Every structure is written in C-alpha cells, then in structure tokens.
C-alpha cells in the first residue's frame, strides 16, 4: 500500500478517507485535522493559556504533544483518581511527558477534594464508578482552570468517543444531552471556562497511531473500571458498522453536528447559579459535587 501523498510505503490505511499515508505524511494529516478543529470552532488562540486535561492515555498525550508542537501555551492537568496501580502508572506517564517536553503539569488528587478516591466513591454511592468519577473530573477541571486563570480546558475526546456518546444519547433519546454535545462549549457563565475537544475529527485508531509513531509513552492498559461500560459496547457496535461501511462513524457524528443538533437546542436556557457551598456553577442550590462530597463524608 502506498502513501497517497508521496507514493512511499504506507504505515496506516484510513479507509474512511480512502487513503493511506507514510509516517511523515500521516503526522502532517493528523496535525492538519487538529488545526482545522481549532480554527473552525475558534477553540483558542496562541495568546491564550490552555489547560490540557491529561490521563496518561493515548488521546490526551497525543493532544498535548500536538498543541506543544503547534506553539500553544499549555499546562497539563492530571486528576489523580486513586484507582490502584492504574492511577500510579498513568500519573507517571504524564509526569514523564511533562518533564521531557519542559511543560508544567498540575496534579490534583480526587481523594483530597472529594474525601475519598474513586473506588471508595463507587462503594459509597452504589453507583457505577464512572458516574462519580466523571462528575468529579468535570467539576475539578473547571475549578482548577478558574483558580489558575485558564480561559479554556482542552480534553482528548476523539471521533469515536463523540460518536459513542451520541449513539448512547440517541438510544435513550436524551434530548437534553444532544445540544450539549459539541466540539466546543462556550463559557456561558463567568465561572464556567470554555471546554474544547481538538481531536474530535480524528478516530481512536488515528490517535493511537499518532501516539505510537511519535514515540509517546502512554498507558495502553485502561482503567480497570472501564470494562463492561455501556460506552465500550457502543464503540464496538460502531466499529462493526465502520468495518462494513467506512466513514459510518464520521457521517453519524458530523451529520449530527452539521444538520441535526440545532433542532434540539432549547428555546429557554437553563438558569445557572452559584452553589451555596462552593460557589461553582450549578442548576440547583447545592452542586452535585458538594452533595457527593457530603455523601462520602457521611459514610467514611
């Protein structure tokens, strides 16, 4: 198989693009997709400080590397979830990356903020571990960005993540979730920072290939709690569709973003207020994070 740009031997075939690339041309293709995402959704400018949420996995470290290479001002944020060896190893990957690239890394421990690590939160709440974990991560990303003066948080969500989320929302007709799905969420309140997903145009396989080819030392093993998650099942279904019909995931997500999402936008905006306890933004009186912390405190 030959590279469609230079004709040399290809290292990766992208069936959805009916293309194959050699290593240098794939790297350029990848970065072009990130540039296009940032430009199209006006995610951030070179003058802005970007907080990059990193997990030690392929997506977030690939994102961080591209943004550094593109000359953006980045700081990493690693949220230590306290999930046994997985967290120890993923944190080490992030620290190693930050040191090698000479970029700052902020480490915040969920256990210190919530009162217990994710495995204990799971037991206390009797909810799936991803529930309290995701809530804590979204809250802490925003709060850390606000406290440290970052106007924007970038996450490593890729096309597969976004397509799987969309699939889940459609399967349950979560019409309130559909308009929130976007490559860029604006800061609609003084205490909400912008949230952007510069990898949303790139598939999981493409981010993995980029991380591998760029010799990024990422954690291949995934979180032990992820096994059996519904989103994994959705990704498997979508991968089978993609196999039968290259471009299916891309068309599903981009068709939604371009043509369907606007139809789900609410006429009346949800009233946002500040949590009576912590001052962060919520739709209620006390935010879900504070309620979770209370629940953990009572039980431990």
């Amino acid at each position, binding site marked *: *198989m030959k590279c469609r740009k230079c004709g040399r031997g*290809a*290292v990766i*075939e992208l*069936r959805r*693009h*009916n293309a194959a690339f050699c290593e240098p041309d794939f790297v350029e293709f990848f970065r072009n997709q990130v540039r296009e995402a940032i*430009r*199209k*959704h*006006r995610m951030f400018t070179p003058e802005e400080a970007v907080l990059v949420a990193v*997990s030690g*996995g*392929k997506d*977030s470290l690939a994102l961080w590397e591209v943004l550094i290479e593109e000359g953006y001002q980045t700081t990493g944020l690693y949220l230590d979830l306290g999930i046994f060896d997985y967290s120890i190893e993923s944190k080490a990957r992030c620290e190693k990356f930050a040191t090698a690239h000479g970029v700052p890394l902020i480490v915040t421990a969920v256990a210190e903020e919530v009162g217990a690590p994710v495995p204990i939160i799971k037991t206390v709440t009797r*909810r*799936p*571990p991803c*529930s309290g974990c*995701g809530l804590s*991560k*979204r*809250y802490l990303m925003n709060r850390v960005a606000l406290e440290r003066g970052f106007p924007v948080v970038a996450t490593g*969500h*890729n096309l*597969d*993540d976004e397509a799987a*989320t969309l699939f*889940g929302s459609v399967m349950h007709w979560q019409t309130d979730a559909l308009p*929130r799905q976007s490559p860029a969420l*604006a800061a609609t309140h003084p205490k909400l920072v912008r949230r952007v997903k510069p990898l949303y145009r790139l598939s*999981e*396989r493409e981010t*993995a*290939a980029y991380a*591998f080819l760029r010799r990024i030392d990422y954690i*291949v*093993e*995934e*979180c032990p*709690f*992820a*096994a*059996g*998650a*519904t*989103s*994994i099942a959705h*990704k498997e279904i979508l991968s*089978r569709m993609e*196999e039968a019909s*290259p*471009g299916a995931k*891309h068309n599903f997500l*981009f068709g939604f973003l371009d043509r369907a999402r606007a139809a789900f936008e*609410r006429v009346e905006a949800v009233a946002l207020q500040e949590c009576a306890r912590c001052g962060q*933004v*919520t*739709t209620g009186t006390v935010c879900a994070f504070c*309620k979770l912390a209370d629940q953990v405190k009572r039980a431990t």
Partner: protein
Amino acid sequence: MKVILRNPKREVQVAGGRRVKDVLRELEIIPETVLVIRGDTLVTADQMVTDDDTIELRPVMSGGSVSGRAQPQPATGEASGEMIGDGRAQPQPAAGEASGEMIGDGRAQPQPAAGEASGEMIGDAS
C-alpha cells in the same frame, strides 16, 4: 509467527506466510480496532508477515476491549453511561434518582465560523 495481544497481555502462535488481514481474520479481530505493530513501526493490512515475524495487535479502544475470540469477555455488571479516561461521556442517572446537576449544563453552543461546509472527508471515499 508470534502475535502479542493486550489487555491482558499474552501471546499466540499462528501461521505466517500470508497477509496481516488474513491473520486478523483468523483471530476474528476487526482491523479498525487495533494497531498492527512490527518492530518500531506500523504495518498495513495488505502487508505480508512471515513465520519468523512478531507482531503486536494493540487495541485502540479506550477500555482495551477487542472483539474477537482472542479476547476475554469484559466483566459485566458495571454498565454505566460514562467511561473513565479519555472517553468522557455524560453520565446517565439511574431511573428515579435525582440527577446530579453537572457543570456545563445549559450552555449555549458556540457556532462554527460562518460560511463553511464541514464534515467533509479528504479524498473520495466513494
């Protein structure tokens, strides 16, 4: 030839002298779900592998689950709306339970720069 699989890491022996896609087919692995690594580079599905080769089939999916008989079944019982790591989907509150108000609820969506088509793929995927 030797094939290294991940999550959990293990090895299997299969016949070489054929294309990568034939090896994947035998192992019932969807090509889209793995990187095929030989040495320090990636190989495409049409490339030949020999009996002396060692290739790693590295899952690309967060969660590491690869469909196929070479994979153990994921544990059940922890089904949830949200993934750990990079795939942060929205949590799905259990029925009848008060939903946690999330940061980011009710945000208006920024519009992409005007006048642009989007979602176009490079190349002719026809």
